[in-house]
């Protein structure tokens, strides 16, 4: 680990804890949870006990301060749990639900959501995507109308991670119609609020153990104090969160690619065809050389960009590059690893197929590869 310049002593000590915790408490049960398309809710509470959600969040509310490198450690180590679904379930509460509360919440909101959120006693979901608006965040239709001291919300959301089991939802709503990205606000909605229902649990190619929900809002009334941050600044608040989310996804994908590489290397050394280990065929060796080059390049780009970000440098292009390169390459690596495994790579008992399924979302979620390229293109003045 000392080879890694990005992390400090506290991160290293913490990494030991998470790694052990994941190896002992999560990995042995991952297959079971993947098959059940669910993991036990008390994992959140147990994660809370080791301070899993505490990194980078303020001490007054039960965090430990510091920057989001603790969350990078989580994203990297979660690969060891052998389930992209568990990683997503714990990870997205950690990385997309809690940080906006910390960044934009009032004291009262922080007491209500951040404190129990860090303890793993209340779970959050970030609800942006709608059936008719994914990449085009400005095209969402869920409407929040101010009536006296309340917002009245009508609309629907889909693909929401932790959407079925969350306790609170940060819902992106149109508060100033016609203004597109300048008319969106984030509003907190508690589970059980009348008119708010989970209409469906979705079944997925990967991230099997995570719950992904479809939500409906019909005349849902919440106090105006549930507004998160500033009215009509929701889009920009979401974009601010995306910076770190994309870096976390890129770091997680890089770690997953490395893990996939490691197990495949072992396999290629042991498996023989035509009287030789398959790894000794030049075509296979070259695949390994390519994969390792991509993984190392991805890690360097990601770590460098994290450094830029935590030191306050503008790095929108680099973040988009990380998201594109690390996430695309992880899928490519997983695909190659399946190829190297031959028929075994296609079998459910081999981990490479799961990594491939779990990684396939990475170039889609959190802003697609194409959208990242659009961001870079715009920043180039094209």
């Amino acid at each position, binding site marked *: 680990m000392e080879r890694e310049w990005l992390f400090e002593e506290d991160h290293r*000590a913490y990494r030991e804890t998470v790694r052990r915790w994941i190896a002992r408490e999560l990995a042995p049960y991952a297959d079971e949870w993947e098959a059940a398309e669910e993991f036990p809710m008390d994992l959140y509470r147990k994660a809370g006990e080791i301070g899993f959600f*505490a990194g980078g969040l303020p001490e007054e509310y039960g965090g430990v301060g510091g920057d989001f490198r603790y969350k990078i450690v989580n994203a990297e180590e979660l690969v060891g749990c052998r389930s992209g679904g568990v990683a997503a379930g714990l990870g997205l509460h950690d990385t997309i639900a809690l940080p906006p509360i910390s960044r934009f919440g009032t004291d009262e909101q922080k007491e209500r959501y951040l404190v129990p959120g860090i303890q793993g006693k209340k779970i959050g979901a970030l609800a942006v995507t709608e059936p008719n608006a994914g990449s085009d965040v400005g095209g969402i239709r869920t409407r929040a109308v101010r009536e006296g001291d309340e917002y009245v919300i009508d609309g629907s959301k889909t693909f929401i991670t932790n959407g079925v089991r969350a306790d609170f939802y940060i819902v992106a709503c149109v508060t100033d119609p016609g203004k597109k990205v300048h008319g969106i606000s984030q509003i907190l909605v508690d589970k059980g609020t009348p008119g708010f229902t989970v209409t469906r649990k979705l079944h997925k190619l990967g991230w099997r153990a995570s719950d992904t929900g479809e939500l409906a809002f019909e005349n849902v009334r919440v106090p105006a104090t549930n507004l998160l941050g500033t009215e009509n600044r929701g889009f920009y608040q979401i974009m601010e969160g995306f910076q770190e989310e994309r870096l976390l996804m890129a770091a997680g994908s890089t770690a997953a690619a490395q893990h996939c590489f490691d197990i495949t290397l072992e396999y290629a050394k042991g498996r023989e065809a035509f009287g030789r280990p398959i790894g000794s065929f030049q075509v296979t060796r070259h695949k390994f050389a390519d994969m390792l080059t991509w993984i190392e390049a991805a890690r360097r780009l990601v770590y460098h960009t994290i450094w830029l970000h935590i030191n306050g440098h503008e790095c929108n292009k680099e973040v988009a590059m990380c998201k594109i390169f690390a996430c695309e390459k992880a899928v490519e690596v997983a695909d190659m690893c399946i190829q190297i495994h031959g028929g075994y790579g296609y079998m459910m008992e081999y981990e490479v197929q799961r990594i491939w399924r779990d990684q396939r979302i990475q170039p889609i979620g959190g802003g697609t590869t194409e959208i990242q390229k659009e961001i870079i293109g715009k920043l180039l003045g094209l």
Partner: protein
Amino acid sequence: MDILVCMKQVPDTETKIVINPEGTGIVTDGIKYVMNPYDEFAVEEALKIKEKMGGTVTIVSMGPQRATEAIRTALAMGADKGVHLCDDAFEGADSYSTAKALAAAIKPLSYDIILGGKQAVDHDNAQVYAALAELLDISHVSIVTQLDVAEDGKSAVAQREVEGGAREVIEVSLPAFIACQKGLNEPRYASLPGIMKAKKKPIDVIDLAKSGLSADEVGEKGAKLKIRKFFLPPEREAGKILEGEPEELATQLVKLLREEAKAI
């Protein structure tokens, strides 16, 4: 209760041990060190006693500079302070000279009970606690899988594992040394807030001078035994598969068993 825990930092149990070419030790490059797994049970038990009865938990460890990491881990789990016997003179110790140094560090401290692992998984000697108890003139109970400290803190009832899965129940007056075995408890993790708090907890470093011992009482010089050589068991050779008719096979097998394996 003033609770002490003797703890050692050892190579991670997943380490692939490589012996150095001279056969005098293992290659330490790239080894990851962790808290001895049996000592984790001791730390956990100490914290549980503290939670129930109040008091302080002090970690006592002998080892090179790097051992502070393991002490910090114990502090992050919730122990209050550390005592680190750290000096080149302590290097190369056997069980006896280790016990000697630990005893010197422990004597000035106030203690009601001392816990430790039943053995360190590096040399697997399982002797330090007995020697230490002797030097401190207290009792010890080994391979403990259940421990109940009396409310007045003056005695404890310990269950220990004996052959055949049987249990022995021992009542012991305190202070005593309790050598902990797997099954005693489920050690907690060093939480992130715990790691941050641990940074502010004191670790008292004791060098040779501070220990009050002389150089020839400790470390390699003070050791009663000298390790002459390290070697790994020979690698198993591939098996032989005989082919042919049953009568031929039997003859070949008997021949091999007699001449090569020298088994008959």
